[in-house]
């Protein structure tokens, strides 16, 4: 394998990784600020539940799923 071929292969690999990273960044990467907002929002819901004297658990809908077998679309 020639040196020139190795360099070309490396360049292609680096370019591929860069493109892959750019695609991931644009299409899949979740904004850390969103995660903070989401966590804050959940905490607020738990605070509301506690203030109302209801079992806190903002996104804990498991018992609803189990108890009522969450209806599926017809």
């Amino acid at each position, binding site marked *: 394998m020639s040196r020139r071929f190795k360099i070309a292969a490396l360049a292609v690999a680096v370019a591929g990784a860069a493109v892959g990273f750019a695609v991931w960044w644009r299409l899949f990467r979740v904004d850390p600020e969103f995660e903070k907002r989401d966590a804050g929002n959940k905490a607020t819901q738990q605070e509301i539940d506690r203030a109302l004297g209801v079992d806190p658990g903002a996104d804990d809908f498991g018992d609803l799923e189990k108890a009522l077998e969450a*209806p599926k679309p017809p």
Partner: protein
Amino acid sequence: MKLASLSPLVVVLLLPSSAALGDTFELKPGPLNRVVFENDAPLETITGMTSDVSGTIEIDLAKPAGAKGKVTIPVKSIDTGVAKRNEDLQSDQWFDAAKHPDMTFAIEKVEIPGALEDGKVQTAKVHGQMTIKGRTKPVVAAAKVSFHKVTEKQKAAWIMADAVRVKALFQLRLSDFGIKIPDNLAGVKVADEVEIKASLTALRK
């Protein structure tokens, strides 16, 4: 016939309907409400979130089964944490926010064991009509419903009036609302079925 003699008749005619409606509770955009959309796609679970929920619930606390109401969520308010994905959701291929800015849920009836009493949580099924992208489909949500008289402790948590708390869970298919999942990378990324979890606090108007 004089107007004065008509008045009692008018009152009698109006009474049954107003009695059936009961009290009005209002949903306002803000921290009291949280709606989460979960799409369990092959590559990842996509989560969308909004607190921009508005609407009213008319409910007779003694007979909550007859509750009526409407909940509205602006499509633009749904945040998935990925700017490009948020943009795509607004497009005509998906929710078409320009033509259909809101998704709505109209409450038709509630299957609930009994009257709503202060602090008592009841499991229920909420029947209604969901409208997304101009199409309306019947939906049944599993829910926990409770009524709470306002206290000083609650005021510290933004609950400034008597409240009806609803936690509801339901599922729907995007294809039922005319949203066809594109046959490309996005098609791999997005599942047809969406689970919706709503935590709502409606305050007495």
